[in-house]
């Protein structure tokens, strides 16, 4: 066991959307920052369009026998080993392989408990801050990473400033969605994307190859934190990124002040680094796990867990999906053949984000994101075989592939909605499963609130209505998923709040029980919101880091020799 005396001002655990903004802000403010990242440090040249290697193996997430999660859904008695619940393990985290659909939270998201007056079976809580407090940091995050969009067309979104970049060019068929949605009295708007529509900060504009989601961008045009925030953080000379390093314990002193982090380096050697401040941002599931793993004699139930709330209130995102198959020739006849190979549809709806006329016991829905089916050919084939319950094989499968690529245009929508916090959804340590370092794996228990599922079904129905109203009429429209869950989006396991008895973190995302320990991934979110949270995580991390920097400036946290 190495006994090193390394010390820095700030250790950031995790280099994704939660860690990178904090690391950059604090390095720019003059702090010496060390980022510990469990995964590898990829460079642009590693990002090929090799579907097998990148999307279908262990490029982003290790195999489950090396790094397991276990999961227990609904009433299942036993948890089983799964690959679900990982975001991704690499420098830049999930932002590296995200699609980059960027939505801000709405004012309602911050006051769900008050607005609904509570809901049986749901553990709703208001946020201790409001949208106005987060809004300048949304602006800052958009400017620092580079977001393309058109302000003013989404009537449900609060924003005072324009997007830093104009919107990406949509596929001509966006007009079909617009027309159909408007015909139903809905308000389609261009989806904001964390993808550069023009050169920005030394990075080239998008080349419209369409390989965003599931892939790294070899062009540097996708606004992952790997492309946007980490290069300037490293260039400051005060931020080091140490890849392949797995944080295994956070240490505190006798006054419950954070003292440092124990980690296993790329060779598996245990090392220790002292720090004034620790920023934990390893994903909602893994951050809760690390706090639980950091139990010691004085904190037998884990760090910052005197209330027993660490890992509770896990929220994911409800998910649904529907597909329309159109005849490409008919679409071209209507819209012209130009630009039919553009990859982005770029349309969203938020009419059901807060909709008392939705017809469910909760007026809180979420977001419809309309998109073209992903260009991945293997995935397309597998999807068609799967949709046919694997009866599609042989010459008919080949013929289906030929039709898919030559004759058809698939327009889909995804629904992201509020995942209500319930007692049955939480993270704890699995009593049996261990990772490759011998540490107990995170056990994920998931239960759905029936009202959230109802809302999701209504939203899927709405999406199908739009697809069915398109002209030319689709050859086929069908729901692909409903009342489902996406495990990439995870929140809530270290709620923030003003009452130390009912929350893990304070309003600045500092642990109530451990001085100078901050959590900046989506763990802090008391409710999931009705859209993917990446921009919210970025914005909040900038917000929290500005508070930490202010404490450094005021001398509340001593810098320098430990």
């Amino acid at each position, binding site marked *: 066991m190495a006994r090193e005396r390394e010390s820095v001002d700030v250790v950031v655990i995790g280099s994704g959307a939660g860690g990178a903004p904090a690391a950059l802000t604090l390095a720019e403010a003059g702090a010496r920052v060390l980022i510990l990242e469990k995964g590898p*440090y990829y*460079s*642009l*040249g*590693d990002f*090929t*369009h*090799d*579907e*097998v*290697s990148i999307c*279908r193996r262990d490029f982003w997430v290790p*195999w489950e*026998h090396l790094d397991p999660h276990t999961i227990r859904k609904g009433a299942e008695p036993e948890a089983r080993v799964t690959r679900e619940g990982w975001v991704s393990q690499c420098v830049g985290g999930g932002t590296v392989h995200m699609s980059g659909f960027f939505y801000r939270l709405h004012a309602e998201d911050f006051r769900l408990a008050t607005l609904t007056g509570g809901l049986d079976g749901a553990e709703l809580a208001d946020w201790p801050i409001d949208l106005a407090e987060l809004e300048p940091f949304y602006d800052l995050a958009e400017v620092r990473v580079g977001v393309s969009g*058109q302000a003013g*067309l989404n009537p449900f979104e609060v924003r005072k400033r324009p997007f830093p970049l104009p*919107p990406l*060019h*949509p596929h*001509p068929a*966006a*007009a079909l969605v*617009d027309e159909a949605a408007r015909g139903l009295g809905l308000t389609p708007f*261009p989806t904001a994307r964390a993808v550069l529509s023009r050169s920005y900060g*030394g*990075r*080239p*504009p998008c*080349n*419209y*190859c*369409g*390989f965003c989601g599931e892939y790294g961008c*070899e*062009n*540097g045009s996708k606004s992952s934190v790997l492309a946007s925030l980490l*290069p300037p953080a490293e260039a400051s000379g005060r931020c080091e990124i140490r890849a392949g390093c797995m944080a295994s314990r956070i240490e505190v002193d006798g006054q419950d002040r954070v003292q440092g982090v124990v980690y296993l380096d790329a060779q598996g050697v245990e090392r220790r680094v002292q720090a004034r401040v620790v920023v934990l941002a390893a994903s909602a599931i893994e951050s809760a796990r690390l706090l639980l793993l950091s139990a010691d004699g004085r904190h037998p139930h884990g760090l910052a867990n005197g209330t027993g709330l660490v890992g509770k209130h896990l929220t994911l995102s409800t998910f649904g999906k529907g597909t329309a198959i159109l005849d490409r020739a008919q679409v071209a006849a209507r819209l012209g053949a*130009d*630009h039919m*190979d*553009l*990859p982005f549809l770029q349309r969203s709806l938020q009419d059901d984000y807060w909709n008392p006329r939705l017809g469910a016991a909760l007026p809180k829905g979420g977001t419809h994101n309309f998109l073209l089916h992903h*260009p991945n*050919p*293997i995935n397309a*084939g*597998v999807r068609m*075989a799967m949709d046919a319950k*694997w*009866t599609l*094989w*042989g*010459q008919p*499968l*080949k013929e289906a*592939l*030929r039709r*898919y*690529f*030559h004759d058809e245009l698939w327009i889909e929508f995804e629904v992201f909605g509020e995942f209500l916090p319930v007692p049955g959804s939480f993270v704890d340590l699995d009593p049996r499963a261990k990772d490759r370092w011998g540490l107990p794996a995170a056990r994920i228990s998931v239960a759905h609130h029936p009202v959230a599922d109802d809302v999701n079904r209504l939203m899927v129905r709405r999406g199908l209505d739009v697809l069915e109203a398109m002209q030319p009429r689709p050859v086929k429209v069908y729901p692909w998923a409903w009342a489902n869950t996406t495990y990439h989006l995870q929140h809530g396991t270290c709620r923030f709040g003003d009452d130390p008895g009912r929350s893990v973190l304070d309003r600045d995302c500092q642990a109530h029980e451990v001085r100078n320990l901050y959590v900046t991934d989506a763990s802090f979110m008391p409710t999931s919101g009705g859209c993917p949270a990446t921009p919210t995580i970025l914005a909040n991390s900038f917000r929290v880091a500005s508070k930490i920097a202010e404490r450094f400036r005021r001398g509340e946290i001593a810098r320098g020799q430990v």
Partner: protein
Amino acid sequence: MNRFSRRAWICGLLGLGAAGLWPRRVRPQGHARAPAPLAPGRSPFDARQRRALAAACERVLPGAGEAGVPGYLDRQLAREPFSRFLAPTFGRAAELLDSQAREAHGQVFAELPAEAQDAILGRFQAGAVQAQGFQARPFFEHLVRFCLEGFLGDPRHGGNRAEVGWRFIGHHPCWWSPRRIDSLTRRGRALPY
């Protein structure tokens, strides 16, 4: 400029741009040549098993043989973690394909006419093939997945020989950018909203 020379030009340009942008090493883009066939003794299957599986691949996705799918399957299943978790299932399946074929027609699977092969594969798809410790349906699903991978995946893995799968679908994943994107980005065309 045709599609492929344009691609090489753009990839070259990207390499340069990326080198300036990124301080770390940048590996060359593009597609490595297909790997050499597995050395004897490295395959998880014997010759008979390989023959049965190759015949099954050809029925699951006609043209699989030409595209090098059987070799792809062999190479993938020789690697961790598939060598541990899937190769035994596929070896067992190969035996079952042959035993089913012999039972019904007195010949090994690879020698049956296509219709008879399809009937047997259909029984795997339906989960109707029963054997101790063997689940037919998950095997069949994996077989379809590997066939699609070997037909449409990057040739660097040994399948999709001479890009035959990509030519069949008419798309090349190294460079799928719209051909006329220049006309959009250069002229600043008005957007449809």
